[in-house]
């Protein structure tokens, strides 16, 4: 369904993705976990063609995203939904209008049909009573649910989630995780989930990939990653600050950097 081969991207001097390869099977939930600033969000943007890779290939449902021009790219985008980290709802229009937007813009459906679909989608995320609210009148968890309703408005084959549970209380986070699982099971949606929420991902993912410094370090089923003897995987899965994955400089490195700077 989604195949990425040898993907690389550099912004200025910063190498964000480094020869990244990954395959996501049809109808599965693939969770990509990794530290902040590891290139996960850039990777998601590349999957929808919003950022072009320096090298490498991205194949989504048989289409080469890396090589497509705008019009052809839009055809593929209509098969995909994206839930952004901060929902990215349009603040000046109501919840119902937000969910209706992809339908109004991409289909010739009658207004009454659009209204029914919007109601159905809002029902699916449990927010049908909030259709006339403005996004600013909702909590961040509810905004993300509206974002999810908008992402599935066109009944996409693929949904990408960018840190869908980040910053939410445990109840809202588990509600969203459950919805992602339900959408996957009921509608057969292929899902790619970028997250820091290891336990949430373990619960719902069929496949997990650990990303570090722009590469996939390890991948496998959640059980495989949890049971992995690999020190870097164990460190990340158990949230240990000390280990092979360095989140800050060691004392020796810090002293060396200071000394070099002074010179």
């Amino acid at each position: 369904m989604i195949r990425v081969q040898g993907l690389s991207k550099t912004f200025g001097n910063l190498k964000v993705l480094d020869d990244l390869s990954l395959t996501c099977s049809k109808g599965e939930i693939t969770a990509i976990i990794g530290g902040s600033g590891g290139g996960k969000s850039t990777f998601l943007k590349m999957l929808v063609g919003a950022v072009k890779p320096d090298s490498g290939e991205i194949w989504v449902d048989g289409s080469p995203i890396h090589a497509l021009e705008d019009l052809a790219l839009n055809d593929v985008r209509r098969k995909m939904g994206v839930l952004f980290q901060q929902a990215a709802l349009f603040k000046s229009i109501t919840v119902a209008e937000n969910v209706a937007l992809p339908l109004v813009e991409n289909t010739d459906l009658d207004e009454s049909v659009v209204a029914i679909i919007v109601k159905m989608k809002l029902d699916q995320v449990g927010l049908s009573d909030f259709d006339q609210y403005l996004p600013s009148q909702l909590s961040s968890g509810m905004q993300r649910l509206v974002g999810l309703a908008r992402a599935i408005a066109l009944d996409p084959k693929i949904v990408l989630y960018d840190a869908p549970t980040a910053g939410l209380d445990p109840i809202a986070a588990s509600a969203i995780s459950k919805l992602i699982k339900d959408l996957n099971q009921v509608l057969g949606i292929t899902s790619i989930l970028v997250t820091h929420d290891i336990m949430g991902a373990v619960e719902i993912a069929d496949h997990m990939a650990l990303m570090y410094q722009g590469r996939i370090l390890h991948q496998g089923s959640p059980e495989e990653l949890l049971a992995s003897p690999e020190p870097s995987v164990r460190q990340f899965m158990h949230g240990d600050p000390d280990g092979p994955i360095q989140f800050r400089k060691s004392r020796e490195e810090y002293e060396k950097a200071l000394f070099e700077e002074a010179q």
Partner: protein
Amino acid sequence: MISNTFGWIGRKTIRFFAHVTNISYLGWDILYWIFVGPWVGRPLRWRNVIQEMDDLGARSFPLIGTMSVSLGTVIIVIIGPQFQAFGIPDYVPELVTVFLVRELSPLLTGVVLAGRVGSMVTARLGTMVTDDEVLALEVMAIEPVEYLMVPKFIATVVMLPCLTILADLIGMTTSLIIATFGLDLPFQSYLDGVLGACTLTDVTFSLFKSVIFGIVIILVSCYQGVNTEGGAEEVGSATMVSVVTCTISVILLNGFMTIMFYL
């Protein structure tokens, strides 16, 4: 020191032409969606155009009206007594009309709209970019230029000449009232003088300038808005740069076009 200065000038010049080139591309893109879009299944969004006309144009009327009343009053109060003292009061309406219609109304309306439209459009688009709303449009297969910028472009380019005509009318009416009741100039002869001095060439030149100002203001504002990166501080900076650039552009273009007209 000298090489640094030349280097600085060189870098600034290159950056200036890069901006001009990018703004030109944006202009072509907007023209494509206005003239070609409707033939490839993307009709113009007239509802949005009218809403933008209200937002960007009609709501500027109190500001333009106040400015025009003040302008008409100041000109007649300064010029009238001087010409009366020299015994040539018949030239007052002609001079006031030429000043207002050919120069001051289009220039000051342009400057006022540069501030109002420049700040409003850049801040709105900049916030949408930093909140991922523009990215959300792209991934929903909605073209941001067509959806967000085309209505603003049409609204500004139509409303600026309309507001200029209103500024002309209000300014001349004010000068007529002050001349009649404040300076004891005969109403009929003043009115005849105004109508005689106001040629079609003057009005056409004034409207031509307004259209050019409108195009420059909206292109610069949109360009600054969609190229905003970061957060609230960057949106503020982009808005400031947009207003300053629009205002300077209007002033310089006005000088250039007036010189070309008189030469």
